[in-house]
């Protein structure tokens, strides 16, 4: 573990990061390697272009949005802490009993609610706390194949918003969003095993 600890020492706020994200030491080390590999000019932080270099993201319909989610609040660079904070959302949920957790502590980043909130923010670009029909349409446009026409997309968007919208305001709030997904096993679907 010698290399690990010296490695760990090179990362500032190591303990803070660990506590905040809940990652194990090995995972953090691996992520740090990856961070440094992505950081092509050795700037110490990542900018948008670094992430856009990842080829596979270019063919992912939501690739751009994911990249944007790494830069919250319109900033143009993300340090290691921010990088890891976003990835912490995808940590698998441990099976510990729910009563054990200290209620005063903030909810862990990989809890179900936080995972859902991350997904919600991908939809809700203007950050008004609701997914309007327009935003839904945009997401659909990204994700649905080219063979579906604009009108069909609009129909789908309308219907989607309608299905989820309970208070009839024509937009989907976070709680409504969470409600539509209550049957889905979000903890499993939004987790990457190696990020334990």
């Amino acid at each position, binding site marked *: 573990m010698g290399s690990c600890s010296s490695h760990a020492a090179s990362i500032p706020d190591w303990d803070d990061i660990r506590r905040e994200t809940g990652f194990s030491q090995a995972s953090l080390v691996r992520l740090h390697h990856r961070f440094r590999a992505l950081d092509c000019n050795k700037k110490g932080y990542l900018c948008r272009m670094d992430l856009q270099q990842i080829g*596979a993201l270019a063919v992912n319909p939501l690739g751009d949005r994911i990249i944007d989610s790494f830069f919250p609040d319109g900033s143009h660079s993300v340090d290691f802490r921010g990088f890891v904070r976003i990835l912490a959302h995808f940590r698998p949920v441990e099976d510990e009993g729910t009563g054990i957790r200290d209620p005063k502590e903030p909810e862990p980043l990989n809890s179900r609610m936080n995972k859902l909130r991350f997904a919600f923010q991908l939809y809700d670009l203007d950050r008004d706390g609701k997914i309007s029909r*327009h935003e839904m349409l945009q997401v659909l446009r990204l994700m649905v194949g080219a063979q579906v*026409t*604009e*009108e*069909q997309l*609009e129909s789908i968007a309308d219907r989607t918003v309608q*299905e989820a919208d309970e208070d009839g305001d024509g937009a989907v709030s976070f709680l409504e969003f969470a409600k*539509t997904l209550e049957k889905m096993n979000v903890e499993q679907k939004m987790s990457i095993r190696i990020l334990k």
Partner: protein
Amino acid sequence: MLRTALPLLGLPLAETEAAGEPTKEPGAPGEPPPGLALFRWQWHEVEAPYLVALWILVASLAKIAPRVQAGLLDFLLFGSLISAVDPVAVLAVFEEVHVNETLFIIVFGESLLNDAVTVVLYKVCNSFVEMGSANVQATDYLKGIASLFVVSLGGAAVGLVFAFLLALTTRFTKRVRIIEPLLVFLLAYAAYLTAEMASLSAIIAVTMCGLGCKKYVEANISHKSRTAVKYTMKTLASCAETVIFMLLGISAVDSSKWAWDSGLVLGTLIFILFFRALGVVLQTWVLNQFRLVPLDKIDQVVMSYGGLRGAVAFALVILLDRTKVPAKDYFVATTIVVVFFTVIIQGLTIKPLVKWLKVKRSEHHKPTLNQELHEHTFDHILAAVEDVVGHHGYHYWRDRWEQFDKKYLSQLLMRRSAYRIRDQIWDVYYRLNIRDAISFVDQGGHVLSSTGLTLPSMPSRNSVAETSVTNLLRESGSGACLDLQVIDTVRSGRDREDAVMHHLLCGGLYKPRRRYKASCSRHFISEDAQERQDKEVFQQNMKRRLESFKSTKHNICFTKNKPRLRKPGHKKKDGVANTETTNGKPPRDLGFQDTAAVIVTLESEEEEEESDSSETEKEDDEGIIFVARATSEVLQEGKVSGNLEVCPSPRVIPPSPTCAEKQLPWKSGQGDLAVYVSSETTKIVPVDMQTGWNQSISSLESLASPPCTQAPTMTHLPPRPLAAEEPQAPLALPSDPLLSFAFPPSLAKAGRSRSESSADIPQQQELQPLMGQKDHTHLSPRAANPRWCIQFNKGGQL
């Protein structure tokens, strides 16, 4: 010998008992205080008889020890055939139990794939037995292991080759639908026979054939063929199962075929349970190191208990050669008992066991559009995050496979038309709409009573109990069919309702489209609602006309409706590129083409001449195409501007009325269409139900008829039927094959009709989709032109 010893032993017993009594006297030091002792341990009193009894018991048990004379190799052979889990039995039992999918896949998959192992082990052991145990050399063992890989991978390869062949040939069977089921059966069976011939694993070959070709064949073949294949397979499978279990039963009764040996039977039963459990536990432990969601104890219990032996074991044991394996009869008896035991006892008790252990059951929730969409989103998110982390996980490979499939395989193996409109989210949306439309028609039967309107697919509302029409329609395996004649046909058994329904629908549901202000008053709910609606609709219309007028200026394009195979270059033609800012996503300029292609597709799904006419007329469609977007007035007031930002793709204006229309018999009386929902009916709906109503109406409309003027109130584009699926529903009608012909044009038009920007919408919408024969005869290739929305020389009508 033992029996004589017993009386002798009885004497010492009596002595010890007598000797024991004095020691029971209380008061001796160290003993518990005197009083009534409820329980005392008195081993020394019963020691001797106990031991004797045990001894006798063990000796009797030894009498049941197996008396079979068989060598190690024979037992290995027997072990190889008895340990294999049988897919038939597993399927039969698990189908009822509905465990969660992971568990089902594990057990069922195991039973399918272990055929390779069974085949290999059986053949290897058989040949060892034949060679004689003395002649087996080390290399033979190695060869045996190598043959395992050869057999399984070879079988899979054979299966995939046939899958490819099958998918490829079904791509071209558009004109000869009748041979499709035949192709499926024959090629699958050929895969089986080929694998058998090469002494590879036949079951794996057939499994892989099915796995590999399903996606493409399902898209390529017609709905009827699919139904035919499905039910024939079920029947055949059921027959085969019955025959083999009958053979099992008969063999059990015919005692000349087997010889009983208690030791072997009991031993086998105990050991198969025990070793299966052991194997499952060990392997699960290994697997859990790599799984995101570990398999817990309950899963392991179900997995080990669910390993049923069945017909394969029996078949293999019957095939043994008695000269080579002298113990064959004992083996046969044991196998019969084992199969009976596992199938009957384990099969019967697994259901209560599952309930008792509270195994997670499979969730049969109907997929809502939201869930479908969000699942897709999550998949993409995870794939992206995996890329960021640099981890080639499950999602990465799955993405890669899907891209490969989309680029190469689907293009090669799927029919063009089917390939175009495949999209999962659209699928779900379409099915939901159909379901709503069906239930809508079901409820109460007529449009006038809208109070009870509920849509089953809206989770927040109560779903209506399915009425018989729905059930009938669904049972017939067809998708939605809102064709009036179909509904009538289906209900032909109920004479009482038939006529009533028919008239009601004629009069109520399918009212002629009228202009806004000229509607007759008997369907109004309230005057002010009507006025408000009218005003809004009018405003929307005007806005939309302006929009589309502007958009046509920018988006003039020609349409070649169907990218024919012989002109591959003409695929993308329009000048409109959707300014998609998405990364790498192909621009949606295929949109309009696909609409055209959709129409054509529908047509092409139809029999014969349809496609010819469609193809020829496509050439003629030159013209400005545009369609104004329909917007839901309820949801989109104030959001219309948002739509304008979207780069408009070329749309299609509804075509002019065909000559066929004028001859539609239905119209003679009422002067109008029989089968579509008029906008008037929307006015019946209370305002708060408007959107739900609109959706179902639009789906009804799209399926049944051209839209009405008040299309703006219709919120949604009618679902385009997927080539391979729902549009076949009308085809399912035995009565009138030509009905199907009538069907698609309406579908095609339905979307376009949204633009009431053109002034002759009234005429255009007179097109009657349901007019089977008459339409068809009149619709020579030339006359078919008007049906195609694409034709629009209607540029001038702007």
